[in-house]
């Protein structure tokens, strides 16, 4: 992962602590959606960012904490108004530690229920990195940059670079 812009080394603008409960996801989404739009992402883009964060939280609840409702999750948000405006979201937990290489989506060609979350996260975000925390649990770092010329639309001809490589740290190159 390339070093983050200066601001992003500071304490987060917002840091949310929540329990591993599905009923708390909508409030979390509302916050992510609003801060994304505040940074300049349009409604469609902020909807996608919100979806990616939601999928990551669902995975922590389902796989990390095995649906236990007393697990703790921390979401840190840096909303950097620099050029390009950059949203960095870090999710941390005290859940089961897994090899980041095992956090991978299924092949999209097999149409079956499930196995889409990790693919969606990689499709939407510019950087995605899973790691084991020294203090226990996992850390997921996600970065999304705002490109006003529309180059940030990950859907347009985006390669399925993640679907079966199991790569756990991706940085998409793109024209600015």
């Amino acid at each position, binding site marked *: 992962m390339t070093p983050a812009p200066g601001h992003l080394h500071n304490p987060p603008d917002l840091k949310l602590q929540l329990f591993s409960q*599905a009923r708390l996801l*909508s409030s979390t989404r509302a916050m992510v959606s609003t801060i994304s739009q505040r940074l300049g992402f349009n409604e469609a883009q902020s909807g996608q960012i919100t*979806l990616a964060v*939601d999928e990551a939280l*669902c995975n922590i609840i389902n796989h990390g904490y095995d649906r236990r409702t007393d697990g703790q999750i921390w979401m840190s948000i840096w909303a950097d108004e620099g050029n390009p405006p950059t949203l960095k979201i870090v999710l941390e937990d005290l859940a089961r530690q897994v090899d980041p290489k095992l956090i991978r989506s299924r092949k999209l060609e097999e149409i*079956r*229920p499930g196995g889409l979350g990790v*693919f*969606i996260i990689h499709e*939407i975000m510019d950087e995605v990195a899973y790691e084991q925390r020294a203090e226990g649990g996992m850390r997921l770092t996600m970065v999304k940059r705002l490109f006003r010329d529309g180059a940030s639309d990950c859907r347009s001809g985006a390669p399925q670079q993640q679907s079966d490589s199991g790569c756990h740290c991706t940085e998409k190159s793109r024209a600015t």
Partner: protein
Amino acid sequence: MSIGDSETFEVEVKRLDGITIIRPMGEIDLSHSPTLRIHLREAYKSKPSRLIIDLGAVPYMDSSGVAILVEAMKNTNTNGGKLILCDLQVKVRSIFEIARLDTVFVIAKNPDDAMMK
């Protein structure tokens, strides 16, 4: 209306000669998808020739919702029926596109259109 406008979730079910129309109302996320799943299982067990899922009142869906729709589609097909989604809002369409499922599902503009497909 978008995220935060309503936090309730309900499912309306209508049946008429072999056609079942399911209309979920609210966000289909991890907290609400189990409710939808129960209704969908009920629905494809009665082997409808056509199972229409009207998503006009669904402002948001995550992959737990998509998984349940994939399951419902497979089971409806196995029973010789057809599952049709209709009236997808922008954000909901987006997840189907990202997951490359917009061509796998039959998607109609509205419920009337879904009756024809």
